[in-house]
């Protein structure tokens, strides 16, 4: 009896320990903790930095604000004090959330949207395929299919529009020099970091307005959630004592006006024709066959049309259409050559002998369906560096805009090459190759991962020279991960990296003389 008693006590103790252990061991460690933004500099001259799409601040007139001593302004200050007196726990939480900086937060939100919408449309029962329709975003398939080219373009529109809008805002901020409410009246509490940055127009409201309007175009089915986030950002700016109602109203109007210019560009950048049509898909295969090459074919069941064959004709940011063609990598080894046989054999051997470390690398950089895509992966990498650099909002926006312009241009250049050559995947030439990760449904040469990663590495190494060796190591790992995955030849990876490096150079050339240095 005594033995049973002891063992049941032991069991109870073990159970209690398991309960306690189970409860606290489930807190997951976030890899992107962001501190409250306390910028090292306000970048007072950012209003003079060179524009990318806009002509300049004069394109968007912002009326002068009321004087700090006016009755209208005093009423706004009184309204902030009243609101602060009745602040709720949820509002405090929203202030904490946005206090890390709107540029970083919107980047996280954007990556989540891409991951949510990055699912290939399901084939119909009769094995045909349908494409998402921007005018019917809630239908099946949902709009968009945020695949890597779509995502690269989306990241670039959001970040470039944010950057341009903030440059305009900075010009007016320093033209009018109206201080932050908590600096005008000691009775207004500063619940976010308050700097000497003038408050009119509010940078938080500019970001909320410009981002909402661009996302309305790119992710229309998510607009309710986006609008709620944007409203929360503006409310946090007011409640935290950083901006008055008129600072916010002017910022919101400015952000929306800037967005309209980008929405117009997006409507005419060639994306609408990127899917192509059946006659064209057949012509691509026929052209490759006429050159004596084995044309790419879809290995999905049922076969799926190639992903966005005309994305190579979508307008780039820093390259003309002639630049895109000029930078196209030279042709891959012929599908009938001994060199190609050797490359196929190398992929097969690599997959057969794959080590646990190599498999981990293939998974780490898989970035396939349901993820923020390779451009999103590089935004996550950039986030750490932007955070640690304590950039002002406008300089943070510049970093993301530059990286994402380079990656959009990389997507355009890479897709232009992929459909110029229409080269088969390793597992098409040798069906015995068992891929480790999902096989992308578009031609092999060149590797998109390698192109994106090399373009991002060029720009990030320019912005953060101390990280250059780290970026280069990640670029190389991302590139070779595709051979570990069994989906790319070595020549796809090598040519993609060279191509991406050249494409990134266009953005770096712009950055060198945009006046921000």
């Amino acid at each position, binding site marked *: 009896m005594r033995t049973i008693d002891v063992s049941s006590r032991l069991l109870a103790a073990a159970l209690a320990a*398991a*309960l306690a*252990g*189970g409860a606290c*061991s*489930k*807190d*997951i*460690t*976030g*890899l*992107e903790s962001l501190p409250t933004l306390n910028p090292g500099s306000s970048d007072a001259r950012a209003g003079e930095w060179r524009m990318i799409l806009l002509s300049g601040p004069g394109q968007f007139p912002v009326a002068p604000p009321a004087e700090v001593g006016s009755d209208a302004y005093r009423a706004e200050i009184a309204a902030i004090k009243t609101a602060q007196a009745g602040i709720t726990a949820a509002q405090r939480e929203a202030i904490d959330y946005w206090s890390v900086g709107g540029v970083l937060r919107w980047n*996280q939100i954007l*990556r*989540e949207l891409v*991951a*949510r919408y990055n*699912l*290939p*449309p*399901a084939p119909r029962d009769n094995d045909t395929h349908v494409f998402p329709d921007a005018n019917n975003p809630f239908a099946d398939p949902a709009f968009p299919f945020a695949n890597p080219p779509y995502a690269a373009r989306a990241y670039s529109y959001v970040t470039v529009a944010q950057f341009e809008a903030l440059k305009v805002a900075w010009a007016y901020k320093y033209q009018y020099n109206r201080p932050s409410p908590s600096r005008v009246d000691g009775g207004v509490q500063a619940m976010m970091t308050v700097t000497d940055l003038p408050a009119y127009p509010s940078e938080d409201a500019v970001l909320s307005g410009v981002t909402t309007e661009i996302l309305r175009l790119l992710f229309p089915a998510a607009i309710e959630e986006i609008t709620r986030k944007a409203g929360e950002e503006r409310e946090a700016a007011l409640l935290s004592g950083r901006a008055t109602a008129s600072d916010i109203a002017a910022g919101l109007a400015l952000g929306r006006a800037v967005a309209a210019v980008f929405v117009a560009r997006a409507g005419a950048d060639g994306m609408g024709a990127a899917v192509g049509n059946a006659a064209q898909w057949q012509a691509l295969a026929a052209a490759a066959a006429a050159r004596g090459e084995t044309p790419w074919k879809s290995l999905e069941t049922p076969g799926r049309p190639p992903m966005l064959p005309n994305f190579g004709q979508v307008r780039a940011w820093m390259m003309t259409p002639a630049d895109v063609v000029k930078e196209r990598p030279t042709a891959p080894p012929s599908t009938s050559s001994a060199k190609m046989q050797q490359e196929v054999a190398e992929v097969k051997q690599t997959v057969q002998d794959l080590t646990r470390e190599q*498999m*981990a*690398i293939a*998974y*780490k950089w*898989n970035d*396939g*369906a*349901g*993820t*923020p895509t390779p451009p999103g*992966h590089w935004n*996550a990498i950039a986030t750490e560096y932007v955070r640690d650099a304590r950039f002002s909002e406008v300089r943070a926006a510049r970093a993301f805009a530059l990286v994402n312009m380079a990656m959009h241009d990389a997507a355009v250049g890479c897709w232009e090459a992929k459909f110029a050559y229409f080269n088969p995947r390793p597992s098409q030439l040798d069906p015995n190759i068992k891929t480790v990760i*999902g096989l992308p449904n578009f031609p092999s040469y060149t590797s998109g991962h390698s192109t994106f990663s090399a373009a991002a590495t060029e720009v990030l190494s320019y912005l953060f020279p101390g990280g250059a060796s780290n970026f280069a190591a990640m670029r190389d790992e991302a590139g070779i991960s595709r051979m570990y995955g069994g989906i790319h030849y070595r020549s796809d990876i090598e040519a993609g990296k060279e191509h991406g490096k050249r494409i990134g150079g266009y953005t770096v050339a712009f950055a060198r003389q945009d006046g921000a240095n």
Partner: protein
Amino acid sequence: GTAAYTWRGKVTLDRSSYFTDGHLYLSDEVAMPDVFDYSVSLGYLKRGLQVPVTFTQQSTLGGGDIRRQDMPFVSNRMNYSRVDALVHYVLPRTRNLALRVGAGRTVSGRNVGQATSFTAGLLYTFHF
């Protein structure tokens, strides 16, 4: 019958973010939902013939659903109810050899396949 509650901790992925249950998690760690399962058996037993029928239910206490066209994920909410029947018959004039024939079916579930299974075999028992 049996019942079990399984406490599960975390798993670590090879990647730095994952999307599940409507959110992008910026982490390589996944909190695994606990699992409760039980099974109840009723049957017939006479001489060499045993016919147990078992009902099994597993409930995962949390976790997201597999989205259409997406990959399954390690922390998916995997629930199922399953019925299995078995005929265990000791062959006449032997003490050691039994014939076993069984069938089972997943009758309902969430994020699991609706599987039907059949088994057939001979069981030889060593008596010491």
